[in-house]
């Protein structure tokens, strides 16, 4: 794959560090929140997820760029990294967040705290 080759970052540089906001879907059910991020072109090891003071931040580096001996005829997309932050409030149990990365889509499962879960209340009729 020489058209999209891996770029080496031996020297620390700001060049090429462009971040875009990834498209994302958020679902909620009784026990957890589910977030999907579209981060195409990113390899699994380049994704970093952090929870700091109830703020979830995703940072994904794209280490790919087009090969040198190719002329770009039509330029619609960048090989950019992705960055996005969400404030979780106190609704999520941040110790048990699970992540799954497949084919450029990252899926996060954020379990709710016990106090935030939906509880069914049964009514007793005498």
């Amino acid at each position, binding site marked *: 794959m020489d*058209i999209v080759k891996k770029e080496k970052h031996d020297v620390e540089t700001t060049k090429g560090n462009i971040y875009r906001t990834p498209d994302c879907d958020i*679902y909620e059910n009784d026990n957890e929140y589910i977030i*999907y991020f579209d981060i195409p072109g990113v390899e699994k090891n380049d994704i970093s997820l952090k929870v700091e003071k109830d703020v979830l931040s995703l940072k994904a580096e794209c280490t*790919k760029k087009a090969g040198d001996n190719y*002329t*770009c005829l039509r330029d*619609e*997309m960048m090989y950019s990294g992705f960055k996005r932050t969400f404030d979780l409030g106190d609704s999520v149990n941040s110790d048990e967040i699970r992540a799954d990365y497949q*084919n450029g889509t990252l899926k996060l499962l954020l379990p709710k705290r016990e106090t935030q879960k939906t509880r069914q209340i049964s009514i007793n009729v005498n």
Partner: protein
Amino acid sequence: MYKTIFDDLFELNREMNQVFSRAGMGGRKNWPETNTYESNDEYILVSKVPGMVKDDIEITVKDNSLTVKGKRNKETPENSKLHMDERFSGNFERNFLVNEKIDIDNIKAEASNGLLIIRLPKSPEMKPKKIKIK
């Protein structure tokens, strides 16, 4: 060559046009975003197709026109409500035309980490031939 203020303005105009013609800016018509490259012996299309498997994408070629189409089905968790819906879903179709004749039998496509790469080798007929002088 002299550099005048107009050169900067033209450059700015070009950049603005590029910004507004970029996929995703004008609705979802240009999904998936695709870059086209050319080298001496092939054309290459690189598309961003996150979360799609190879069975979802259909690639057809006729002469020098290539069509990428398919349907993106998003995975929807059961019994859940939707809070935010930004990711593309539904049918898409894009058509790409290249200038030269391509070698239809040797087209290769691969997908990894949400990037689809289609290689279209130029037809051997299109390569320059040397002619000997008798």
